[in-house]
């Protein structure tokens, strides 16, 4: 087990270094001048070459790429993660301030996806091809197809025009005011959760349909076990492994989707900070946030792999 964990940690580290290199290089070869956002349109137009030189030096962009990369690694190692080009705020502070909100959205979205997806999947599987199955499958296809940001905008507009309601416009942390905080995260979490729930419903349906035809399920029925117990205690635990696997992958979608959905809801989380940083060409913020997202994705997938052994005693790590 230890060997396995070490190996996985080693691969995870390799993945993150690879990701960091890709982000670093891509951000520097993409066209676009961060000085436009710093100086504004008029200031940028009036900037002299000597001013540009000084500004690029101040931003650390005049150094060679290896020097810039080494500096970034140093910033990661010290936990500071560098400073935004613009207001001089550290990326660490940005993550500490906005991260909890995005994490809450992701966790709540995951909970919603399971709360919605699993019952719907079970219902579809135990009555395959019935009307409930047809409705569940249609809805799951709909929620997979509908873009989250569009659904988000519709929800925002519907709440505004029908009820005159809008969620808080600044970050309210859970420990400051749980109710206001809940209003902030609920909308994005529902939109993201429903989309992921649709995937879980489809996956749990197909897995359960497969497991439900297994001999041991038939044996359980033959023993006279009630149908609910057969499904929940015998079939479902064995059908859950692929669902758990996909949940890990779906977390990546939640993180990616949160960028657009936070923007649609106007929720000031990390996703929105990433959008603004990309528009402003705030390279330091972008590279750290993308790496953070990649890191979370890698860690979650390792945790998912590890959970297999606990869920299925037949699996042993070599």
């Amino acid at each position, binding site marked *: 087990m230890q060997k396995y964990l070490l190996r996985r940690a080693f691969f995870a580290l390799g993945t993150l270094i690879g990701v960091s290199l890709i982000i670093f290089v891509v951000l520097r070869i993409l*066209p676009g001048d961060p000085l436009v956002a710093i100086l504004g349109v008029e*200031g940028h*137009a009036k900037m002299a070459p000597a001013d540009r030189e000084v500004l690029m030096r101040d931003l650390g962009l005049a150094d060679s790429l290896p020097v810039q990369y080494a500096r970034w690694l140093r910033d990661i190692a010290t936990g500071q993660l560098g400073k935004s080009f*613009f207001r*001089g705020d550290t990326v660490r502070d940005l993550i500490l301030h906005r991260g909890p909100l995005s994490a809450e959205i992701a966790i709540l979205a995951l909970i919603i996806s399971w709360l919605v997806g699993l019952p719907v999947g079970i219902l579809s599987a135990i009555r395959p091809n019935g009307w409930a199955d047809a409705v569940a499958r249609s809805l799951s296809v709909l929620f997979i197809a509908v873009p989250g940001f569009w659904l988000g905008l519709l929800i925002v507009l519907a709440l505004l025009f029908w009820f005159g309601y809008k969620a808080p*416009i600044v970050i309210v942390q859970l420990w400051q005011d749980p109710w206001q905080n809940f209003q902030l995260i609920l909308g994005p979490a529902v939109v993201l959760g429903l989309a992921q729930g649709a995937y879980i419903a489809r996956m749990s349906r197909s897995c359960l349909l497969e497991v439900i035809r297994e001999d041991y399920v038939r044996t359980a029925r033959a023993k006279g076990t009630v149908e609910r117990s057969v499904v929940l205690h015998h079939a479902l635990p064995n059908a859950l492994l692929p669902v758990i696997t996909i949940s890990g992958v779906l977390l990546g979608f939640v993180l990616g989707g949160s960028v657009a959905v936070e923007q649609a809801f106007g929720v000031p989380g990390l996703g929105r900070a990433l959008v603004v940083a990309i528009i402003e060409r705030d390279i330091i913020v972008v590279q750290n946030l993308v790496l953070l997202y990649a890191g979370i994705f890698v860690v979650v997938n390792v945790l998912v792999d590890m959970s297999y052994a606990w869920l299925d005693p037949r699996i042993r790590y070599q």
Partner: protein
Amino acid sequence: MADPVRSKARKPGVSRRSFLKTVGVAGAATTAPGFLRSRAEAQDTPYRDPAAKRGGTLRYGVHTAPAHFDVHQSGTVANIGAQSPMYDTLLRRDPRDGQTIIPDLAFKWDVAPDGKKYTFYLRKGVKFHDGAEFTAEDVKATYERIIRPPKGVVIPRTSLFTAVGEIVVLDPYRIEFRLTEPRPRAFMLGAFASGWNIIVRKKTLDDNQGNLRQVMAYPGTGPFRHVSRKDKEVWIMERNPDYWNKGLPYVDRLEVYHMPPFSPELGSAFLSGKLDYARLLDPVSWRKAKEMPGVTAAAFNQSVIQACFMNQKKVKAFQDVRVRRAMHLAMDRHVLVDVVKDTAPMQIGGFVYPFHEASTPKAELEKRLGYQKDPKAAIQEAKKLMQAAGYGQGLKGLDFLVRDAATFKLWAVAIQAMLKENLNVETNLRVVQISQWFEEAAAGNFDIAITAIVSSLMDPSDYFTAWYGKDGPQNYAGWTNEQFHSLARNIEREVDDGKRKTMIRQAEDILESDPPLIPVSYEQIYDAWYNKVRGQNPTPYFGIYDVVRWDQVWLQS
């Protein structure tokens, strides 16, 4: 004698009489300072609403967060919208009309008869938020930096003061700006009254090597003091109890929320009552606000032209004046305004701000080819011009550089269709992020490009150089016309308003016949506020950069 100046706006301001009274008192103070000083200072804030009440929190939504904190180096309302309530300027525009220039940190001023010397008399007893006393040294340090910024510091307003040769501190409360050549008084005083030119402490500048980009909440003398800031969310300020203008500001607390302009986010925050005042609303939210009981919605002019540039350095055909004029005439401007009506408010105009006193009046402009509601005659003329220039068959494969914003994308498609349909000019749209647009435009990597360009003042002398000047920073097309450049230089120096107006019309005629760009439209701003917010109505304002301090706003409830 103090020197009242109205800028050249068509809409006259209100209560000129009360302003002149104020000026009269200030003028008397010059001759009898011993007993009139207190009277002058008591009256030099021209507007006190007798019904005004103290207290409350004003929640104001305006633009995204600033990219940095240096107001002088900024060109966006992201800075001035959030930070200006903490600062004062030498002179300012009256919040009632947004036009009349009134005293601020300078309670009066003299202009030498030859127009080459401006002397400002500064208030005594004004304190910065850190307790330091305000003196002429702070004004000198501020303006030295604006006029001659250190390397790596770029200040868009530097060009307003090119004629200033020397700044001399006469005593701690008197300062003189000596010009190397005369400038129109309205232009110079407009520059001093620009909301951008906030007065900062000399020590602050010295301590930070003249660069305040990453210095948050450096001390000002303004009506509000910094309390806290949440990046990209809100900037909170409190009433400055030691404000020199006793009794002001009226509100105890100001919360400035950073929200993207024209966004549903800003619109929904206002419509749901989470903001008291919203600036830069999108047209849909603004129209909705207008219908709401207890809400006032206002539209006013902005200091921005939306324009297409024809790269003369790259495309040979554009060096022919007939081709450029033909492309200018091929635009149906009424349609272009209509195309974006749900995205951003726009109005038709030519090469000079259409609401400026010296520009061709709208009714007259709309009789001209290129601006008429029925574009047939203009298009016929455009076709003839293309034929005469040898491009009767049109042009193919032009690279059309488009900024990635809703308005530009909508216009680009419409303009592409107009050029193809009317002149058989074929373009390939290339949509890029704003940061890339300016990089490409500066490098000349485009055939046609569309963007917005701005000015600080409504006075043509500000933007004639930047937009149309030879090697002007926003003359992306590389246009030159010696007759125009020479005329523009004379306009810059002419101090007689009547003569200047005639010259501006002549310049306008040159620009019409030899277009340096294709004017697409002029921007407007949509504001809305709940009626409990009193003391400010931006309807007659020009732009969102001058009246920005909220010191005279009060809350009814």
